[in-house]
Structure formats: structure tokens, C-alpha cells
């Protein structure tokens, strides 16, 4: 726990500053009300009405998110392996080789299936 306490101190400092700035912002500046200023900015045209609860994400971002998860999980396994590599020796090498090959197979599949194409 002692190791983490300093991080919290810094976090409190950082968060405190950020919150302070955000809260103080409305009071430091002048107030000149103007209807147009309160519209969302869309280069001057009438703002597009946004659906309540947020709009929908394009599907391609979801695919990116999925791919990210898959590879992030791979990294989860790579780190402990890398740290303990010296003790695992040849076994670790071979197993990780297989693991990476397996991931690469999935990777190749995604690539070939145009999962890695962005417009």
C-alpha cells in the first residue's frame, strides 16, 4: 500500500487542479449571452439534432475495438512471459511461439477478410 500512496497524492493534486480549473472557468470570464453561441458548432449551418442518449457508432469502430481487445489480451500474456522468460527457458519459448502463431492465424484471417481495411 505504501507504494501506491504517493500515486494517490499526485492524483489528488492533478484532479484537484483540473476540477478547480473547470469549475472556476464560468466565473472568470465575462458573460455575453447570445443564442447562436450556445448552439453546437457545425461550421455555421443549423446544428444536426442529436438523438437523446447519444447517436450510433459506425460499425467499423466496433471492429477496431474488438481487434484491440484481442490483441490487448495477447499482451496480457506476453508481459508475464517476458518477465519470467529466463526461468521458463526453452519451454516458454516454444509455447509462446505457438501462442503467437495462433494469434497470427487469427490475424491473417482478419486481414484477408478485410477486417483491417479502413476507408
Amino acid at each position, binding site marked *: 500500500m505504501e507504494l501506491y500512496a504517493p500515486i494517490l497524492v499526485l492524483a489528488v493534486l492533478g484532479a484537484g487542479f483540473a476540477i478547480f480549473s473547470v469549475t472556476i472557468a464560468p466565473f472568470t470570464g465575462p458573460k455575453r449571452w447570445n443564442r447562436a453561441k450556445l448552439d453546437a458548432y457545425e461550421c455555421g449551418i443549423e446544428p444536426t439534432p442529436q438523438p437523446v442518449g447519444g447517436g450510433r457508432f459506425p460499425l467499423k469502430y466496433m471492429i477496431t475495438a474488438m481487434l484491440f481487445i484481442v490483441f490487448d489480451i495477447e499482451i496480457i500474456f506476453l508481459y508475464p512471459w517476458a518477465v*519470467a522468460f529466463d*526461468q*521458463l*527457458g*526453452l*519451454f*516458454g519459448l516454444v509455447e509462446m511461439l505457438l501462442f503467437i502463431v*495462433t494469434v497470427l*492465424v*487469427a490475424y*491473417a*484471417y482478419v*486481414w*484477408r*477478410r478485410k477486417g483491417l481495411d479502413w476507408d
Partner: protein
Amino acid sequence: MNNITAPTIEYALLAPLLLVFGAAIVGVLVEAFAPRYLRRSIHVPLTLLALLGAFVLTILQVAREGVPTEPAAMGALALDGPALFIWGVILVLAVVSTLLINDEDQFVAQAAAVPGSSDEEEAVRSGYAQTEVYPLLLFSVGGMMLFPAANDLLVMFVALEVLSLPLYLLCGLARHRRLLSQEASMKYFLLGSFSSAIFLYGMALTYGAAGTLDLNGIRGALAGISGANTLLLIGMALLGVGLLFKIGAAPFQVWKPDVYQGAPTAITALMASTVLVSAFGAMLRVFWVALGNLEWDWQPVMWGVAILTMVVGAILAITQTEIKRMLAYSSIAHAGFILTGVVATGDFAQNQAALSGILFYLAAYGFTTVGAFAVATMVREAGGEAGHLSKWAGLGKRSPILAGIFAFFLLAFAGIPLTSGFFGKYAVFSAAYAGGALPLVVVGVVTSAIAAFFYVRVIVLMFFSEPAADGPTIATPTVGTSAVIALAAAATVVLGVFPQPVLDLAGEAASALFILR
């Protein structure tokens, strides 16, 4: 920090498993690199060879080295008699199902395309089919093999997911009745992941109580815990819920009819046969090995579950008008019958008898189920398979052989002597009786009779009523489908008339029970 040692792995023992998974990975590569027109002709032999190869390897291993008495892979896997028997059954059933899956026109051309869209139309026109089915199948089969062999709750959980996830997808790939199929897929997925989350929490609590996830470790730790440990009891209950969900025992059966109906029939055949086999293997291992010392705690509950399952399965089946739904409820009822065997624990000999009975039942039921669903794929109407029972009226007159075989399967489900189902039921019920579960046997018998009613009703419909004018067409069977039906029928007959070899095998497999180390 420096105490990590490289584990040792018995590759020879694990060869069947590795082969199946390896083939699955190769399948993904085929999917990625082979041209579309070639994919199927690569996938099918690859899948079949991998499954058969794994089967042969399993047999060779047993023949050469005998059944292992030590857990493999650093205690993660217990490849004992029951596990190997289940492997054999799963592999054979998977081969059979593959032949069925190979039948044309079952899988959607492009899963991602919206039904009715021009994308889909184009895909259908080009004769595409979702060939990912084969690697998915192999992954799932690999998971099914891992599931009952897991000697460690973690491996079991991973296996559970490896088994389930491909199935969730496979369920949604039916070419006809896409909406139903997708709906089945979603329901299966949501409920399935819900149940695995419950299983996982049970695992966590068990880990908390026992301090280990190794099944034998849990057994040992539990011996030391005296009295009722709340954590443990809840954990056990949650683990049980997860497993009971997989076998579709009441009150966790709601997914089964929907999923069985919506999924492509070939996939339903696979699920109905192999998943049940695999899940029972895992369930036995958890309850007999890990929680073996807590019999008195889980047995009463299991009694209730078994009774409820049998009753719910049999009674709700009567109200069904859809053939696959009916078979789903029948599968629930059968799960209940098998559960009577799970409950019947006692001394060593008693457990042996119960275990071998269950193993035999699973094998017998698996073949019959695959056969029944195979027949269901062949009765078609304009929009796909003719699922509604009214469409089956008079089938005996249009296609006496097909209807006859189906009737035979139904009789086997009903447990009429000289079919495999009879000996299965006999084996389980006699074990249950010997284990002191007479009321369960009586309930089992009564529900069998109720169940017989709806099986017989279908036979009546097929043979004793006049065919409807706009009745279904009987598809000309492909070689694969006819082989499946013939094989299933042959297995049902052989196991019904001369079950001894398989009984011997099951007895042999059960002779040492599970590895307790």
C-alpha cells in the same frame, strides 16, 4: 520469484486434443487463404480426418499405454477412463454430425448480410456458404473434449467457453428462417454467458473456500472443512447451476427449445448429442470428484432437479407442435433420466455401475439423437425444413423407409426394448435403484410413459393419418445424410440388441472411476 519451473506436458496423451485444435487453426488459415470455390472441398476432408485421427489416436493411446492413472499436463487434465470414453463418443458423433453439416443449403451464404438485402441475394446467387462452420465446429469439439477431461476448474471454465462460443455463432447461421436462427443465437448467447458467469462466480467462491481450483485439491480441502461452510455451499450451488444449464436440466432448461428450434438442424444434432455428453462428463467430475465429500449437501437438491427435469421435459413436450422443439424437450427429459444416475452415488461398486450406465446412456442417446435430427433435415417444404408436426402427417405413406427409421428412433427415445434407449434407461435406472433412489426411478418410469405418449403421437401422425395435400417434400438424401441416418439406425439397433461390447467398454472406462489425484 525464482521458483517458476517449466511445466512438463504429456504430448502423446494430449495428441487427440491438439490434433483437433490444430486442425481448427489450419481451418482458419484455409478460410483466410484458399479461394472460395475450393474452401469446402478442403474443409470437409480436413475436418473429417482430424476427428477420425483424434479418435484413432485416442484408441491407440489406450491400446498402447492403457488408461492413465495420473493426471496429465501438471494436473490440469485427467484423462481417465470416463474422459477417454467420452472423447471417443464425442469424436464419433462429431464425425457423424460433420457429414450432416456437409449437406448442402443449410448455412447462410453470408452471415453479415441483412436478410433479403441485395448483398445476400448476390451471395446466394454466387453459391456462397459460410464455410467458417467447419473450423468453428472443430474448435467447439475441442472444447467439448477438454470440458469433461478438465481436472481443474479453471481449465473447465475455459473449456466451457471454447465449447460454447463457436456454438453461439453456429446457431445463428441457418440459411432458411434467418430471423429464428439469429434469435436462437442471441438467446443462447445471452443465457449461455449468463450461466457461465454464474459458474465462474461459483468457481470463485469455491476457490475462496478451498484455496485451490484443482478438483482433487478441493476434495482434499473440503475434507478438512467441517460443518456447513456458507461460502462453499453457495459456490457449489452456483457451480451446479452453470453445469445444469449446459445439460439443460430444469429449471435451467428454457434455452433449449428455442435454441434447438432456431439453430440449423445439423448444428442442433451436434449440440443435442455431443454437448450433452460432454457436459455430463464435466458435471460428474465436479460433483463426484471435487464435491464427492459433500454428497449429503448436494444430493437432495439434485434429487429435486432430476425429478423436475424429467417432469418438465416430459410434460411440456406434449404441448409441442414443432418437431425440433419436441425433440428439445425430449432431450430435457433424457437429461433428467441421466441425472438419476448422477444422484445414485454410494460405495465404489455402486458408483462404477452408475457411471458405466451413464456413459452407455450418453453414447446410445447421442447416436439416436443425431439420427433423429438427420431425418428432420430431410423433410422440407418451401421455406426450409418442415418443422411443424402437422406437416409430418402421413409421412409413412410418402416415404415409408424414412418414416420407419424415424419411428424407430422415437421408439428408442421412448425406451422400447430392443432399441439402444431401453438399455440406456435400464442401466441408469438400475444404478439409481441400487443407489437407493427408488422414488427417482418411479418418477423416471412414470415420465417415461408420459414421454412415450408424445413419441407415439408422432408415429401416429406419420403412419396413421392421411398425408396433407400440401405436405412437405422429402429431400433426396445426399450420401452424407443417408450415411448418418444409416449409421445412427445401425447404432441404435446394435446397441439395442447386442449392447455388451459397448457396455463392456463403458464398464472398463468406469472401472477406476475418476482420477482422484
